[in-house]
């Protein structure tokens, strides 16, 4: 596998150089050349306006991962219904909302995989949120999530019922299970997808995700193996409105008797730290390096309290230790889509924008008028957040104190 540049076609336009995520292209004598840094990602092939770049296969050997997948035998869209302490995670309901659309486009059933101990009553909720079928595996061994027991249960289900697509939440459990399962059933997995849609002609799942810290977006396909596995972070997809009159079929499957499980969950500890539910927040007041320190975040908290908002932060602020990492918004933090996002002292690194650009209304407060955050903001205030936020607080207080005497609004 390597990238070839057709020297007679290349115009030296440098488009490929700009598109290369690893900086592997140099323009030498008006012609692009590929250096050793090339990872064969193919980004340049797409970008070349004169089709002078090709990806060449050294051979066409079939990998073992691709053998014996009769694609036509795989049908249906599945969602892994992740539980914690016997409760369905929000992410599972969001995935059902998305899975419903994919299943309808493909004209197939939407299945939910429910694994646990005495969890059958939860099936009704899965039907309400869109599932046609619930694949149920119950066993005392499945009380808590463990990699090998859950992987074995899913492997058995997949081999028996052959879904074409399986969506898993990109939680600390889903990101443990997904790749283990992909390795087991020899199929591809795309992590942290932000957009899923169907190429109806080829009957393939287009899995779009950010890469390089959100600097580029990539659409990944899994053409030859099944199921097509994707993980999605919470807050990215939308739940459907539940219909509790909806019903469906429950298919009970047996937990294989001879599963090798080499881990023991000795304890599950809930930490007393405040739960920061950024994904479901309607308003977020977020701070970056411009906040200057933990004291600065106290001011943000005051504003947030007044607005009924939750405090978010950029990676810079979290890495500086000013605020715990569960407040982090961005590619390596949380993906949020509130109706209002107020970015204070955040310059707007791509990795941050990747997590919040889908907010309905974005307000940016920054001293530097050329900060990238203003490129995606709806409203910009060029100024010192330590002057703007107190003024904002005062005005908000005036409003709540009965705005008769105030001419503010």
């Amino acid at each position, binding site marked *: 596998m390597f990238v070839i540049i057709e020297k007679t076609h290349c115009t030296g336009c440098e488009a490929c150089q700009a598109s290369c995520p690893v900086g592997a292209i140099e323009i030498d004598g008006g012609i692009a050349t590929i250096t050793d840094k090339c990872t064969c990602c193919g980004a340049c092939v797409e970008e070349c306006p004169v089709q002078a770049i090709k990806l060449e296969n050294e051979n066409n050997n079939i990998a073992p991962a691709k053998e014996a997948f009769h694609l036509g035998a795989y049908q249906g869209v599945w969602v892994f219904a992740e539980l914690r302490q016997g409760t369905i995670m929000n992410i599972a309901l969001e995935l059902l909302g998305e899975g419903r659309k994919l299943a309808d486009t493909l004209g197939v059933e939407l299945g939910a995989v429910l694994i646990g101990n005495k969890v059958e009553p939860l099936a009704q909720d899965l039907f309400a949120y869109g599932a046609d079928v619930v694949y149920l595996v119950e066993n005392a061994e499945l009380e808590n999530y463990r990699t090998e027991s859950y992987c074995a249960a899913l492997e058995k289900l997949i081999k028996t019922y052959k879904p074409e697509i399986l969506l898993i939440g990109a939680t600390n459990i889903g990101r*443990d299970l997904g790749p283990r399962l992909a390795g087991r059933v020899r199929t591809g997995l795309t992590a942290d997808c932000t957009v899923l849609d169907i190429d109806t002609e080829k009957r393939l799942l287009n899995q779009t995700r950010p890469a390089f810290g959100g600097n580029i977006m990539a659409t990944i396909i899994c053409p030859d193996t099944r199921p097509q596995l994707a993980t999605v972070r919470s807050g990215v997809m939308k739940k459907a409105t539940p219909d509790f009159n909806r019903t469906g079929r429950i298919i009970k499957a047996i937990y294989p008797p001879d599963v090798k499980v080499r*881990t023991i969950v000795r304890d599950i500890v809930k930490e007393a730290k405040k*739960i920061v539910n950024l994904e479901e927040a309607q*308003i977020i007041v977020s701070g970056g390096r411009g906040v200057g320190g933990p004291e600065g975040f106290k001011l943000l908290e005051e504003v947030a309290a007044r607005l009924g908002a939750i405090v978010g932060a950029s990676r810079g602020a979290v890495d500086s230790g000013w605020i715990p990492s569960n407040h982090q918004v961005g590619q390596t933090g949380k993906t949020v889509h509130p109706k209002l996002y107020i970015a204070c002292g955040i310059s707007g690194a791509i990795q941050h924008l*990747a997590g919040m650009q889908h907010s309905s209304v974005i307000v940016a407060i920054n001293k530097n008028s050329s900060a990238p955050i203003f*490129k995606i903001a*709806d409203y910009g205030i060029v100024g010192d957040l330590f002057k703007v936020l107190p003024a904002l607080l005062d005005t908000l207080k005036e409003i709540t104190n009965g705005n008769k005497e105030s001419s503010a609004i």
Partner: protein
Amino acid sequence: MQIIVCLKQVPNTNEVKFDTKTGTLIRDGVASIINPDDRNALEEAIRLKELKGGTVTAITMGPPQADYALREALAMGADEAILLSDRAFAGADTWATSLTLAQAIKKIGHYDLIFCGRQAIDGDTAQVGPELAEHLDLPQVTYVKKIISMDSDKAVVERALEDGYEVIEVTLPAVLTAVKELNTPRYATTSGIVDAFDVKKITVWGMTQLDIATGLVGLNASPTKVKRTFSPAVKGDVKFLTGSIKETVQTLLKELQAKHVL
């Protein structure tokens, strides 16, 4: 203890800037680094070696210049380093990458523990660790934030969850993936750096040394394919609010109320 640490050399994405005019990346002068989580994995492996004795072998798959990441690992305290490099490995997705790593680890033979970082900052997939564990038929614990005990046949670790952690006992050998809470990685010492570049050697393995079929590596063995890549869409049309600070915040609040977001 024989510990193997899997590393990835990555571009420092924190330094990558975006040119909003042209919609392209500005990478001039962006350095390659050892992936941050992998550095935590390496640090923990070195600490365990210091406590229990044994060796730490750092392994990476990548182009020839990934050699530099291994030199850094040696400078921090790894004893041996193996670079898996062959043009045939290029274009590998996580499935194929983990299979090549597994093949190399089988060739190394004896090991008690394999450490990886949770995820790399360029791809953010967190997939290679669990896929490697599956290919080697080993138990795995991901998101390891603390090692409570480490015996010859089992370990007890804390695995981070979103709202707390699990205490997990795992039989060895096993694959563990490290998160940044696990430790603070050390800096290389001057003598470590000198040793890494002048004394210690890096072993390079390609297709021949791994004795692996071409269909099992690189893009050929990758179930996923990149269909297209593109720049993220950028919004525009920011409305700058001006005037005195008082006027500015009043205008802002009026606008937000008009849009029904307040």
